[in-house]
């Protein structure tokens, strides 16, 4: 006891007498600080991100078919969409999973992507005109219809002249070889009064000319990449309670329909000029950027100045006139060209930006369609089915939604939601209705039904005629125009208004299912038990945690942690070397003292413990100091929160601010690391100290 106390006393008093100790202490201090703060930050980010992932689509666990070639990756993988085998019948899987006492809900899902076209402005306007002429053919002409027809017609005429203007402009830039004389000729014809005077004689022929020869000349329609999750929308909304509807309404229970992500709606479907204004405003307000210093903002202003076409094409002559009037008033200008007025109006600077932004939304926006898609519109989605055929369906957009806290996260924001029925169709699998419909067609056309099991026999067996049948290659049937006509259109109306029962939704394919647990703490255990349960039930399922299911994103924090621990490792390796050297010097300085102790009768073991106790105490004192400061910093950050500087961080912070917390684990980890490092780095100097001969005590140094 006495000895230990003496050792502690020697160690404690040596602590502050040696400059070397202060150096070592400093390293330990900052090392601990780094481990505590860095570790706590990453842990907090980890749990924030896990909340984001779990709360958006993943749930705690995901199950998918064990026959899948790739691993599930909900946010997209390294090389596009992962290749997953389907779960043939969700209704068979659900009860097996739900039997587990820790499973709260199971939500069927399928993630896929498609290209959608936003439509060419000319095409859209021509379609409107065609509809009006059709209406006139059916109902006869009324004054209101006439006025409407004239307005749209003049809008088309204005578009043509705008196109002509642009062509003339670009002629200076293009070589004559790049100009297609047929296009020039078509445009010239559409410009003539003669064309418009004779328009009414055969409106449909005239329209066809415009649709085929003029509309394609406007390279306007964007192809947009769209990711969507097909799911049981009701169950999804109940399960993921961070989800909220922003515009429109939820898809009515059992109906087909889509909810676009608000983020996607804003960033991809909004009028580009308006989007750029929004972006500039956000950067200025949130990030204190300025137009005159920030190149990105300057680029946006420049694009707004030079690309007014999107607005010009949208406006018919009446609205064009209104827009000119309003802009003239706002700018105090007499300019008659809307293009020039817009360009001037959108030349925003730091001084006038806020006024212009407000004026844009007050004066111009009411004249414009701000979004390329409105709530209630039908969206045509074209996707490749699993078997490689092109599949196209119309889905009604009911509204937009967002996940609370993840409003600005591109990661969570790219996920659009779709009903499971539409998803299955796009994915190339037949719903019972479709099957029934095909059966009816087969009956009518005298084709035999061939199911998958005996398809080979039927197709190539002895008795097979040439009966290539629908079900074997569903994509072909789906895609073909064979159903055009009464049956086809009837079916389409049917589909949009049809209400599916829960049973219909659940009986069918899904790609994966999200599982929400009652007690997330038992995730690992539940995961194992579910694996066993599904194997026992004869289901070939893979059960993965949200982290694995999220793919690369899920690994992000793990990677960041690896980087941190690698940095800590390097720092401590350096610390190890420095402490080692410093302790060597300290030992050399104390050779006589150690020699004296040895001469007086101290065993080597005493000297060893003396040096070790000293280092461990050093590590302890400065480690506690670092940990205290670290805890202080963390509690300050914990109450103030760390703002997510850019939108990518929203996902990792699970909201606009991260409120980090410090766990006991962080502190313990820091402590263990620090004590280990200080003990290891002292082993050699301590060994050297034990080798000091008592003879050293006899040396006289004065």
């Amino acid at each position, binding site marked *: 006891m*006495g*000895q230990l106390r*003496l050792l502690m*006393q*020697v160690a404690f*008093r*040596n602590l502050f*007498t040696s400059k070397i100790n202060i150096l070592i202490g400093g390293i330990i201090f900052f090392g601990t600080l780094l481990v505590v703060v860095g570790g706590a930050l990453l842990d907090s980010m980890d749990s924030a991100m896990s909340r984001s992932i779990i709360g958006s689509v993943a749930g705690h666990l995901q199950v998918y078919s064990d026959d899948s070639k790739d691993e599930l990756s909900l946010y997209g993988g390294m090389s596009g969409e992962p290749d997953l085998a389907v779960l043939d019948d969700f209704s068979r899987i659900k009860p097996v999973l739900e039997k587990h006492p820790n499973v709260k809900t199971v939500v069927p899902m399928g993630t896929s992507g498609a290209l959608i076209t936003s439509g060419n402005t000319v095409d859209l306007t021509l379609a409107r005109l065609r509809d009006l002429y059709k209406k006139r053919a059916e109902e006869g002409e009324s004054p209101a219809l006439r006025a409407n027809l004239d307005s749209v017609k003049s809008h088309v005429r204005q578009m043509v002249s705008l196109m002509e203007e642009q062509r003339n402009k670009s002629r200076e830039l293009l070589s004559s070889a790049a100009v297609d004389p047929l296009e020039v000729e078509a445009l010239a014809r559409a410009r003539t009064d003669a064309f418009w005077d004779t328009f009414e004689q055969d409106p449909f022929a005239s329209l066809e000319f415009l649709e085929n020869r003029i509309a394609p000349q406007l390279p306007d329609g964007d192809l947009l990449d769209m990711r969507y999750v097909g799911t049981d929308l009701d169950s999804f909304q109940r399960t993921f309670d961070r989800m909220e509807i922003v515009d429109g309404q939820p898809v009515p229970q059992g109906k087909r329909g889509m909810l676009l992500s608000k983020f996607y709606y804003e960033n991809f479907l909004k009028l580009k000029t308006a989007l750029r204004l929004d972006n500039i405003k956000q950067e200025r307000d949130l990030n204190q950027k300025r137009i005159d210093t920030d190149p990105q903002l300057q680029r946006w202003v420049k694009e707004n100045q030079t690309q007014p076409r999107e607005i010009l094409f949208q406006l018919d002559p009446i609205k064009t006139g209104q827009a000119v009037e309003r802009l003239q008033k706002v700018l105090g200008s007499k300019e008659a060209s809307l293009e020039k007025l817009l360009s001037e109006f959108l030349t925003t600077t730091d001084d006038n930006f806020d006024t212009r932004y407000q004026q844009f939304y007050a004066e111009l926006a009411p004249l414009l369609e701000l979004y390329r898609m409105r709530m209630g519109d039908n969206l045509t989605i074209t996707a490749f089915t699993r078997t490689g055929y092109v599949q196209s369906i119309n889905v009604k957009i009911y509204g937009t939604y967002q996940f609370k806290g993840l409003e600005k996260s591109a990661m969570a924001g790219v996920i659009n939601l779709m009903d499971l029925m539409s998803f299955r169709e796009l994915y190339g699998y037949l719903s019972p209705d479709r099957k029934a419909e095909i059966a009816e067609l087969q009956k009518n056309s005298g084709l035999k039904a061939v199911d998958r099991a005996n398809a080979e026999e039927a197709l190539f067996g002895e008795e097979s005629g040439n009966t290539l049948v629908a079900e074997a290659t569903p994509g072909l049937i789906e895609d073909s125009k064979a159903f055009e006509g009464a049956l086809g259109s009837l079916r389409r109306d049917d589909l949009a208004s049809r209400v599916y029962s829960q049973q219909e939704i659940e009986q069918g394919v899904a790609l994966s299912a999200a599982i929400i647990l009652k007690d997330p703490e038992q995730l690992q255990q539940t995961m194992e038990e579910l694996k066993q349960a599904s194997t026992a039930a004869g289901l070939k399922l893979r059960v993965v945690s949200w982290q694995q299911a999220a793919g690369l994103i899920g690994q992000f924090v793990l990677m960041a942690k690896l980087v941190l621990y690698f940095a800590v490792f390097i720092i401590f390796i350096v610390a190890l070397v420095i402490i080692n050297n410093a302790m060597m010097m300290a030992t050399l300085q104390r050779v*006589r*003292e150690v020699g*004296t*102790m*040895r*001469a*007086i*009768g*101290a*065993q*080597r073991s*005493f000297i060893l413990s003396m040096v070790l106790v000293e280092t461990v105490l050093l590590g302890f004192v400065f480690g506690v100091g670092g940990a205290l400061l670290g805890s202080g910093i963390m509690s300050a950050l914990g109450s103030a929160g760390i703002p997510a500087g850019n939108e990518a961080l929203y996902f990792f912070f699970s909201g606009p601010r991260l409120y980090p917390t410090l766990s006991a684990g962080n502190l313990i980890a820091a402590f263990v690391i620090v004590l280990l490092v200080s003990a290891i780095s002292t082993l050699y100097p301590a060994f050297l100290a034990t080798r000091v*001969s*008592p*003879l050293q*005590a*006899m040396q*006289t*140094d*004065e």
Partner: protein
Amino acid sequence: MNAAVAQSPIVSITNVTKDYTLGKVVVPALRGVDLQVHPGEFISIAGPSGSGKTTLLNLIGCVDTATSGVVSVAGQDTKQLTERQLTHLRLHTIGFIFQSFNLVSVLSVFQNVEFPLLLQRKLDKNQRKERVNQLLEQVGLAHHAKHRPNELSGGQRQRVAVARALVTRPQLVLADEPTANLDSVTGQHIIDLMKELNQKEGTTFIFSTHDAKVMNHANAVVRLADGKILDRLTPSEAKRALAVGAEGH
């Protein structure tokens, strides 16, 4: 004195040599030394520097081993002992007083004196306290128990060292030039103190010095030269011999 001689010697050195190797050169420090020290003696080892005084003391103090010959301390042949056993022997049998005091600077006077007792682990806290205070009393530093060594004068420090050397009640105390770093008055006090303890406690003292006045206190002066013992004299003989030596210069 006769009684002391009658006891078996506490230090017995027989035909001891000690060589130091400096690179490829072998330097003989002791070349065949025989010496017997009996309990209760107060012996001074004298001789010019380089004569082997320190080497001889190191061998007696078990901090070094002889190249040949037998060094036996408290009846034990040091060659037969392991490092641990030698350390044990030093702790329990020998007290050391160093030329430059060698106190542990971060410990108080009390703690410095207590140090060997802690290593011994024989006494409990109160016994240790009593013993340390008793010794501090004896060396006249009872009021300085809480001071740090650097707050004391050289003489005071050496007195602390004396107390430390004697606190375990060793049979033998070795002092290598204990007065070399002290002025003559203080040095005299230290020698007086050692002598007093020698007489009171019967502790054997062996100290090296080249100060004639210090030698006066010894009851025998062993003169060394070139690694050999010249003679073993009484103080008065030594005084005369030194006087002759001085004339010879």
